[in-house]
């Protein structure tokens, strides 16, 4: 039985995470930023599930944790979108660089 080693999953997760982080920090469109955050959270899920199956101390907890992560991510993105809507209604823009009326 050959199976993919843990390190492969971890690397994949890390790559995803870095991509997400990069996007979240550099993108201008807020929707894309929120999506990038989702990407990061999904990287976490990969980590958790991989560890829970292949980690040094496998246990089911990781999968439970990932369920929580998923729901939290959903809540976060829902709130994020809602706030974005409110912002858009007042500002007519989803560009993160235009969210700056308070900067001096």
């Amino acid at each position, binding site marked *: 039985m050959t199976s993919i080693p843990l390190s492969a999953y971890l690397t994949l997760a890390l790559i995803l995470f870095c991509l997400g982080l990069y996007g979240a920090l550099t993108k201008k469109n807020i929707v894309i930023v929120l999506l990038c955050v989702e990407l990061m959270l999904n990287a976490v899920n990969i980590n958790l599930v991989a560890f829970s199956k292949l980690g040094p*101390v496998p246990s089911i907890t990781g999968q439970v944790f990932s369920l929580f992560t998923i729901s939290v991510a959903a809540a976060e993105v829902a709130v994020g979108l809602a706030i974005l809507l409110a912002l858009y209604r007042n500002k007519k823009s989803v560009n993160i660089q235009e969210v700056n009326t308070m900067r001096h």
Partner: protein
Amino acid sequence: MDIETLLSFNWGAMMPEFIILGVLTVLCIIDLLMPAKYSRRSLGWFAIAGVLVAIVSLLSLIPLETTSILYDTFRLDSFAKAFKLVLLFGMLLVLLLAESYRPGEGIEETRGEFYYLFLTALLGTMVMASSGDLITLFVGLELLSVSSYILAGIRKRHLQSNEAAMKYVINGSIATAITLFGMSYLYGLTGTTNLTEMGSMMEQMLNSQFQYLFGVAFFMMLVGFSFKIASAPFHMWAPDVYQGAPTPVTAFLSVISKAAGFIIMLRIIIFLYVEAPGDAVGAFDFMEINHVYIAVLAGVTMVIGNVVALRQSNIKRMLAYSSIAHAGYLLVSIATLGYFTSSIIWFYLVAYMLMNVGAFAIVQHMQEKTGSTEIDSYAGLYKSNPLLAVTMSIFLLSMAGIPGTAGFIGKMYIFIGTFSVNPSNYVLAATLIGTTVISYVYYIGVMKQMFFRPAFEQGNPNRGRIAPSLLIVLSICVLGTIIFGIIPGIALDFLGEFKQFDDFVE
């Protein structure tokens, strides 16, 4: 899990949480079913009453021994008790602020939500305070975060409020993701999410690769905490969010959210990292080697917070930077982890809560009367409302750490903690004191406006009556600031009740 095991738990230990949960659910339903024409004001008092009941029930739990229920996911140890008390009390003050929050427009349609979202956030912090499990910790953290995102943007039609919320969400969710990534490593290496088990697993790990990953996990989690407590390098959100968010929310963020950040930080560090080995042979503990980084963080935070605060012309922004600086002071105490650390943080948080909520109460009042949060608008306050000016000065002086105020005792305590560990970090202490002196300038700057500048001509708007709930907040805060400054024994002896958290530190 069958019914017997479920009933065998001592659910009484969770009473305060249940009370808050119940109150917020009821509030939520009432708010939904109440016809739109009725004002939601009275709901605020209901929430306040709920928090009061929770405080009472928590006080009655103090004699209870350390209990852990739900398979050690929920722990009621002395640490949890002490800090939950701070959180609840702070919430009480913030809710009083919220009760009297009348920004003119943009809040009445969501006033019901305004109150119960505070309670959900509070519930999150309380769960964090007594969580014995990474998952609970994380869920608590997120409950707090998501509620505060909404709270920051609760004035839907107010552009600044929107912007604040947007910034907060983006920064917050990035920080969450990073924290979570760190947590996933922790889980992966130990195979458990229970903090106690995790800690004992980590103690035994001498594999340097694993230790490296622990380190990575630690710093990733540090990102999340440093976001919550608004310390450098993740403080950038704070000024904008503080300025844009409704004032009670700002008070909430700067006090309770920050307190929660420190609580979770302490829990993670003390449960997991204090005993973890820091090198391959286990000669040094993890924190012994890595406290330097926290110290650097603390130093940078203090410097940035205080220096940038000098240039602010908006009082909420100024208070934001000041609160960043305060986070730095508290980080000093974490960087020099020792016997006193938990007590120091407890006391400082209490002091900080009193002075900060007080200051924001005045900011809120002034914002409603003058419609501005610029420091200029405080000009001549002493003429038009001397009592308010003096009260504000007391808070500012306490923040500056002038003797006779709670803030001073707090700083003193930090120093004692810093110097009583060996080897003491004198550079950090010097930074702390140096930046404190810098902070005098901007705190005094506000006082100068209030006392020396002539008021604007606009028909003397400052002579407004102070709302009763605001008055309660102000009197509690002033009295607390002064009493804890002159006879801090009250609070310190109360801390003695918890026996220096010996069951927590183990």
